[in-house]
């Protein structure tokens, strides 16, 4: 519950739980909750549909007003504590990263950032992240579509399975790949014969990144599709529209913001993933090092300035992602207000 409230800014707070607070059954619960919601207002009009759904961003406003009228002796300290906490836990560390990165001057910073190994790590990180984003967007769309549009055996199992990467520790995730594709695996001789190397190589890093970021898009899309029902798609199909037309003209406009939001969360995690990647990487400098791993190596070698310089790249990426996220949230809330008929 706490994570829901804390992330209440998001279009789908329950879905936006960070990996640090594994949502356990949260996803499934939210989904079945939505189901109940849908059947409840089966008979009501479109606008009512939108209004009665949980987590409608527009609802935040009146609630905030009510809070503001409360006791100032309680509000003041509460606000101060929250701000202090945010300052100490989030803003100060970020500032330290930037200050340290530039502590030896701009030229040292540029050297550190344009170091050959740093650049290779950057390329590998971007490669793994973009592949993970592409794969998981496709997977998310397919899984969400299947789960919300068809009744089939093992459906609730699939919904649970989608969440596994969130409930498994990243280190375990990495180990899974080592056990599956590494020397101990019965697959290994076979892979070896074809000259395929996965563990301690780029494919392993990509697989690990895909694994840990798998749920993001699907978990954003499932409740959105679920809440919307299938009537519009059926109406379109009845008029003779094909799958692609229906998807492009009817489904996509509805899930657009959820999709973008899921991709943003997925990117953030893909760029920053440490644990799982660290296990499968083997840390071959210039070969299997991603940016987060590179930062750690530099740090362990007491190259603090360089470590902070490279870290500042990730921090900057995080800031951009945050900005994109805020923009999407703002835009989707506005869309929600304008064409009030839909969920967000």
């Amino acid at each position: 519950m706490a994570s829901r409230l804390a992330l209440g800014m998001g279009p789908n707070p329950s879905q936006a739980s960070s990996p640090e607070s594994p949502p356990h059954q949260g996803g499934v619960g939210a989904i079945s909750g939505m189901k109940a919601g849908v059947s409840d207002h089966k008979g009501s009009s479109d606008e009512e549909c939108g209004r009665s759904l949980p987590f409608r961003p527009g609802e935040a406003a009146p609630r905030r007003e009510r809070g503001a009228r409360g006791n100032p002796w309680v509000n003041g300290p509460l606000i101060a504590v929250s701000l202090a906490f945010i300052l100490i836990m989030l803003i100060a560390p970020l500032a330290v990263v930037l200050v340290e990165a530039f502590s030896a001057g701009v030229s040292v910073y540029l050297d550190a950032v344009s170091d050959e190994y740093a650049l290779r790590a950057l390329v590998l990180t971007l490669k793994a992240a973009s592949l993970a984003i592409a794969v998981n967007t496709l997977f998310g769309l397919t899984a969400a579509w299947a789960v919300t549009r068809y009744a089939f055996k093992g459906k609730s199992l699939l919904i649970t399975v989608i969440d596994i990467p969130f409930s498994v520790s990243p280190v375990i995730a990495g180990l899974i790949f080592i056990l599956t594709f590494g020397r101990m695996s019965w697959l290994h001789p076979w892979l070896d014969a074809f000259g395929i190397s996965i563990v301690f190589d780029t494919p392993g890093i990509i697989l690990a990144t895909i694994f840990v970021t798998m749920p993001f898009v699907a978990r954003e899309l499932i409740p959105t599709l679920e809440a919307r029902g299938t009537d519009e798609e059926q109406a379109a199909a009845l008029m003779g529209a094909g799958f692609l037309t229906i998807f492009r003209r009817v489904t996509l406009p509805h899930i657009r913001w959820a999709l973008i939001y899921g991709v943003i969360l997925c990117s953030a995690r893909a760029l920053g993933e440490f644990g799982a990647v660290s296990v499968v990487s083997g840390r071959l400098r210039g070969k299997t090092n991603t940016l987060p791993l590179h930062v750690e190596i530099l740090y362990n070698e007491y190259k603090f300035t360089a470590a902070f310089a490279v870290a500042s790249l990730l921090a900057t990426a995080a800031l951009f992602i945050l900005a994109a996220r805020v923009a999407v949230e703002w835009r989707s809330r506005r869309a929600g207000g304008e064409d009030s008929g839909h969920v967000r």
Partner: protein
Amino acid sequence: MYVELRHIHKSFDAVRAARDVSFGVDKGALAALLGPSGSGKTTILRMIAGLQNPDYGDILIDGLRVNDMPPSRRGIGFVFQNYALFRYMTVFDNIAFGLEVRKIPRAAVRDRVSELLALIGLEGFERRYPAQLSGGQKQRVAFARALAPNPSLLLLDEPFAAVDAKVRRELRLWLREMVGRLGVTSIFVTHDQDEAVEAADTIIVTNQGVVEQLGRPAELYKDPATPFVAGFIGDSTPLDDVTALKGFEGEAAPGAVRPEFIRILPPGEVGQYPNCLEEAVVEGILFRGAWLEVRLAVGGISLPARYPLEDPPLTVGDAVRVMIYRLYAFVGERVILRQNAGLRGMNSDYAYSI
């Protein structure tokens, strides 16, 4: 017969949503599927459209078996419950959608959409989004969208359920006129008998997945075929045993009586047939506009009856005498209209005219 269902069965797990459903609708007719909620109306409509497949039985449209034909090839326009308008498209794009997927040239699409907008009286609303329309306007857009590709069969699922009562009445007259003008065979689903009676040529009464009766509104009203129809149509009051009422002695049977079968004698009137009059007490009086609805206690039974405004006024607690002219007795699955025994030999036309 333009649409025909033959021995259709459909189950959802343990729920039997359609049981041996057979009926036909003539070309150009406006038919209503009338029944309580959960009686299988939507399921029947969706099977005709091809959105659901029957477990057994044949569906024919224009003499052709369409069971294996995809929905889009059946020539159907469908108005969904709650309309299912494309909420991210303007009114124009909503109506144009069915034409565009048919690759109809743009100019022709524009002409057709303008024509339909004029038909539904929403010129100037092209650029609005569904969320910016009232319930009645949405209903009209859904209607235009379904009609755009010139379907030969129009199916409407509870088309008036989501609009308020006043607009609803307007809309059903409008629908009736529109369907009459276009001559498109139409079937609409409703749970409201007034709606069915007012708009439809033919009513198909469903109950628990079974078709109870098919007929013109007046036929259903005058000659209900099953106890369910006798109870469902009109403001019928169920009776445990009709022989408890004066003038209906004989073989015991459950039944039903309608308010218009009962006449309250104004205080002071002697009445011609004293031995078939019931003693009753006025329990409540409701003003219904053209008449008063009076709730009577007759023996242990509570019955609604009508009382003209012109007659001497009644008050709650008054003892009155009432004449029950006739009622329905249920013998097995049959419905028998029984006349009051005291009226035997009297002109039966007179009995009907009350």
